[in-house]
C-alpha cells in the first residue's frame, strides 16, 4: 500500500526506491546574517537564548535530519516554538531553509526553479492548515476545487472531482454553503477535502485539529486514520498533542527548540524516552495501550514454550491482559510458529505500573535512562 497508480504516472524523474522526503542537516535561522549561523561549529551546542544573545538570530530549525518513508504517517511533535511548523513549511519551501538539503522522491527540492517548485506544490504535496485557510467568498465545492482550478483544470471536470471528494469526507449536501456557515470541524473537512482533491503524493498537516473541540478532534483523527488505511498516502503530521501523535503516528519525531530530541515508533518513545524531557512528556501515557507484548515478554522456560494461548508479537499489552486474565496462565508470544517468549501477570502489571524499564531487549538508548 505504498503508491497509488495515479501518483506513479506523475513521477517520471523520481527514484521509486527513495524515501518520500529525505532531509539532511536542515537549518532555518531567522535574523540578521542568518546564513552564517549554521556553518559555525561554535553555535552547535548553544541554547536558543545563548544563540540569540550571541548572534541576534533565532534558529527555528537546528540541524535536523530524517527520512519520511512512503506510505507512513510521520508525526512531528513538539510544544509551541519548537520549530515544527517552520519545519513542515520548509519541505515545500513555503519557508526557504537557510541550509541543508531536502529531497523528495530523490529529487533535490532546493535546486528546483520556480516552475518546478510550483509543479511540486500543485501535484505532489498538499497541506492542511490549523486555521483552515478557506476562501470565505466561495462555496464549499469551489473551495474544494480550488487546487484543481490553480492547476488549470476545466470547471466541469474540477467540480465533478470536488463533488467526489466532498462525499468522501462526509460533507455531502453542503456543497453550496459558505465556509462561514460551517462548524469548525466541517470547515476542517473542507480543508482536508481541498488537499485530497489534487490527489497529492504526500499530505502535510500543520496542527490541523488543534483549533477543534476534543470530540470533533477525535472524529477528525479517525477520519485521517480511515483515509490512510484506504489510500495509504504518505502523511507528515504536525501536532503538539501527544495523544494525537501516539494515535496517528507510525513514527514520531519529537522536537524541542528546533532540534530533534527523539525519533522512533510510539512504542519506542513511550518505553524508552531518550531523556528527562521526553520522560516528562510521556509520563501520563496509558502505557498498556502503546507497548506491545514483544517488549513486555520474558524468555520462556521449558515448561511454558509449547503450552498456553498464542499472541502475535505486536499485540498491545492491554489486549494481552485480557487474554492472560481469561486463560489464567501465561500466554506465548508466537511469530511464524516460533515461540519468542511469554507474558504473565507480573510482566503485564510491570508495564502498566511503568516499572518495566531496563529490559535487556531494548536498544542502546536505555543507558541514558535512570
Amino acid at each position, binding site marked *: 500500500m505504498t503508491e497509488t497508480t495515479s501518483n506513479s504516472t506523475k513521477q517520471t524523474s523520481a527514484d521509486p526506491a527513495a524515501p518520500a522526503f529525505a532531509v539532511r542537516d536542515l537549518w532555518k535561522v531567522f535574523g540578521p546574517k542568518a546564513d552564517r549561523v549554521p556553518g559555525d561549529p561554535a553555535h552547535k551546542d548553544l541554547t536558543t537564548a545563548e544563540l540569540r544573545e550571541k548572534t541576534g538570530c533565532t534558529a527555528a530549525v537546528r540541524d535536523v535530519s530524517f527520512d519520511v518513508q512512503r506510505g507512513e504517517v510521520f508525526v512531528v511533535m513538539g510544544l509551541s516554538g519548537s520549530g515544527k511548523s517552520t519545519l513542515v513549511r520548509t519541505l515545500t519551501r*513555503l519557508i526557504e531553509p537557510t541550509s541543508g538539503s531536502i529531497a523528495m522522491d530523490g529529487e533535490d527540492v532546493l535546486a528546483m526553479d520556480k516552475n518546478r517548485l510550483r509543479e511540486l506544490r500543485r501535484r505532489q504535496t498538499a497541506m492542511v492548515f490549523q486555521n483552515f485557510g478557506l476562501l470565505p467568498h466561495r462555496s464549499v465545492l469551489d473551495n474544494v476545487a480550488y487546487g484543481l482550478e490553480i492547476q488549470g483544470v476545466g470547471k466541469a471536470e474540477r467540480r465533478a472531482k470536488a463533488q467526489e471528494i466532498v462525499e468522501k469526507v462526509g460533507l455531502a449536501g453542503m456543497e453550496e454553503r459558505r465556509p462561514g456557515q460551517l462548524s469548525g470541524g466541517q470547515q476542517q473537512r473542507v480543508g482536508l477535502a481541498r488537499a485530497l482533491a489534487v490527489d497529492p503524493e504526500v499530505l502535510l498537516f500543520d496542527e490541523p485539529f488543534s483549533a477543534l473541540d476534543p470530540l470533533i478532534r477525535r472524529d477528525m483523527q479517525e477520519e485521517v486514520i480511515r483515509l490512510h488505511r484506504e489510500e495509504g498516502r504518505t502523511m507528515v503530521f504536525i501536532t503538539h498533542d501527544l495523544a494525537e501523535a501516539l494515535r496517528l503516528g507510525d513514527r514520531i519525531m519529537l522536537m524541542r527548540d528546533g532540534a530533534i530530541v527523539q525519533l522512533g515508533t510510539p512504542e519506542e518513545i513511550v518505553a524508552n524516552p531518550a531523556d528527562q524531557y521526553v520522560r516528562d512528556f510521556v509520563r501520563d501515557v496509558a502505557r498498556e495501550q502503546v507497548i506491545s507484548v514483544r517488549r513486555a515478554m520474558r524468555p520462556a522456560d521449558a515448561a511454558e514454550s509449547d503450552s498456553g494461548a498464542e499472541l502475535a508479537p505486536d499485540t498491545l499489552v492491554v489486549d494481552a491482559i485480557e487474554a492472560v486474565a481469561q486463560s489464567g496462565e501465561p500466554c506465548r508470544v508466537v511469530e511464524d510458529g516460533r515461540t519468542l517468549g511469554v507474558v504473565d501477570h507480573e510482566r503485564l502489571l510491570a508495564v502498566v505500573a511503568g516499572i518495566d524499564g531496563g529490559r535487556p531487549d531494548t536498544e542502546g538508548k536505555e543507558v541514558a535512562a535512570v
Partner: protein
Amino acid sequence: MSTTTPALDKADTPGTTPGVPQAPGPLARLAANPKALLLIAALLLAVVSAVVSGSGVWPEGLTFDLRTPLTELNQWLVENRESHWIFLYFLLHISNTAESSVDLVVTLLESLGFIGVTVLAVLLAWYAGGAGLHRRALRTAGTALVTFLVIGLLGMWEPAMETLGLMVICVIASALVGLVLGLVAGLSDRGERVLRPVFDTMQVLPAFSYLLPFVLIFDVGVPAAFAATVIYAAPPMARLTALGLRGADPVALEASRSLGATPWQQLKTARIPLARRQMFLGLNQTIMMCLSMVVLASMIGAPGLGEEIFRALSILDIGQSLGAGIAIVLIAVWFDRTTAAAGDRLDDPAAVRSTGGSLIQGGVVVVGTAVAAVVGSAIGRVEWPDEWVVSISGPVNSATAWIEDELGSGIPVIGGTLTWASGFANYVINPMRDALQATPWWAILVLGGVLAYLAGRWRAAVTTVLALGVIGGMGLWTRSMDTLSQVIAALVLTLILGFAIGILAARVDWLDRAIRPVLDTMQTMPQFIYLIPMVALFMGGRFAGVAAAVIYALPAVVRITDQGIRSINPAALEAARSLGATTGQQLRQVQIPLARKSLLLAVNQGVVLVLSMVVIAGMIGGGALGVDVVKGLAKGDLGLGMTAGIAIVCLGILLDRVSQPGAEAKRGVS
C-alpha cells in the same frame, strides 16, 4: 506624567493659574515632569510677551512676495494655455476628454428623459439591493424613487442631471485611479512607503485647497472640477484597497501558495476577493467624497446643484438654496444606501448568485430603462414638466424671515439666535483673536513648536515651526490668526459636545441606537449643505461658520468617542464594577483612560474637519483666509487665492501635527 491627563487638559491647568502659588504636592510633581515644565515655560513666554509688546505683527523684513510670481504664473498660463506643448500634448487631452465625457453622460441622461432616468435609478438600486421582492431590494429601490421624484418636484431636475453627469465621470476616474494606487500600495512595500505619507497628508488638507491649483492649470470650468475631484476622492479607494489586500487572511494566502498558485492566480482568486469588502467600503467613500467635491467645485465653475446653492448663498437666499440642498442630500442618501446595500450583499451567503441569474437581472435593468425612455418620449414627456414643480422658495424665505424677526433677538432672558451669534463673536472669538494677534509671532512659534514636540517629537516640531514660518512669510499672519481663532473656538465647542454625547451614547444603549443612523447620514453629506441652516438661523457671519463647523465635525467626534469607550477591554470594566465602582468612577478611572487613544484620535479628526469647514464658511461671512480664497476664485485673482490657500494648508498641517496622537500614544507610555 503623573496621571493619564490628555494633552488638552495640560494646556488648561497652567494657563488658568499662572503665577498662583500651588500646594507643594502638585508643585513637586510638576517639577519632576520636564514636559509640563516645558509647556508652562512656553505659555508663560507667550502670555508675558503678549502683555509687554501688545502687538504680534510679523516683521516686514521677514516676508517674501509670493503673490507677484503667482500672478505672473497665472498670466503666463492664460497666455500659453492654447499653445504650449505641455497643454497641447497632455493637459488639453485630459480637459477635453473630461469635458466631452461629461457632456456625453449629460446628453445621455437628457435623452433618457425624466421617466427613463428615474426608472434606471430605481432598477439600479433594486439590483444593488439584491434584485428580488425582499425588503432590502425594495427599500433601496424606494429610496431611489423618492429621491428622483422629489428632485423633480423641487424643480431641480436639470441641475441634478448636470451634477450626476459630472459625478459619473468623476467616480469612474477616481475609482480607477484609486484601484491602481491601492494595488501598488497593497502589493509593494516600497509603493506603500511612498504613497502612505502622501495619502496621510491629503487627508488633512481641506477640500477647498484642492480647487486652486487646478484652476491655475485648467482655468475655471468642468475640467478643473474633474481633476480636483478625482485627486480629492481617489485616496479612500486606494487606502482601503491597500488595507484589504494587506489584511487578507494570511492562512488563506498561504493555502493558495501551498497549492502552487502563481502570484497572478493568488491575486485573482484569493487576494482581491478577500479584499472585496474593504474595496467596496472604499468605493462608497470615494463616491461620497466625489459628490462633496462636485458640489463644492461649483465655486470654480462646475455646473449643477452646487452652482444653485453657491449662487443662492452668496445673496443669502435661503429658499433657493434649500431646494438644491435637499436634492443633494437625497442624492447622497441614494448613493450611500445603494452602494451599502451592494456591499452588504457580498457578505450575505443567501445571495449566492448564479451567472445566469445576474445576467437576467442586468437585462431587466437595461430593458426596463429603454422601455421607460421610449414611453417617455412617446408621450412627449422628456423633460420634467414645469407644472409639476412645487416652488418652496417663497414659503421658505418667509419662514426664514420669521425666524430672524421672532427668534433672532429680543426673546426675554434667552435672547435669540442673532443675539447669541453676536455674543459669541464678541465675547469668545474676538478676545481669542485679539490675544492671538497680540502675542508676538516668535512667541507663537515657540509655543507651537513646544506643543508639536510634546505630541510628536522633533519632526513634528520642525514641521509646525516651518508651517508657521511660511504663513508669516507670505504676509498672512494676521488673517491666519483670525482663522485660527475661529478654528479653536469651533474645536473647543465640538470637543465639549462631541465627548459629552459620545460618552453618553457609549453608556446608554438606546441613545446609541437612536443617533447612529443620524450620524451615518450626517457623515455622508457634502460640506456645503451645512451652511444653509446656519445662514437661515444666524444670518451668516463668523458664528454661523463656527456653528456649521461644529455640526460638520461633530458626527466623527461622537462616533470615535463612542466606539473608543465601547471597545475597551470588558474584563477591566467588569473588574471595576465588581469592586463596587460608581458610574463616575468607572468612567474616570477605567473607561476614559483606556479609551485615551481613541479620544486623541477624535481630537485629531475634529481639528481636520473643523478647519475644512471654517474655511468654507468664508463664503457666508466667516472672513479671514476663507474669504480670500473665495475672492481669489471668483475674481480670478490667483495670487490672492493661492497664497491664502497655501496658508490654509499650512494651518492644516500645523493643527494636525499638534493634535496627532502620534509618538506618545504609539509607544503606549504616558
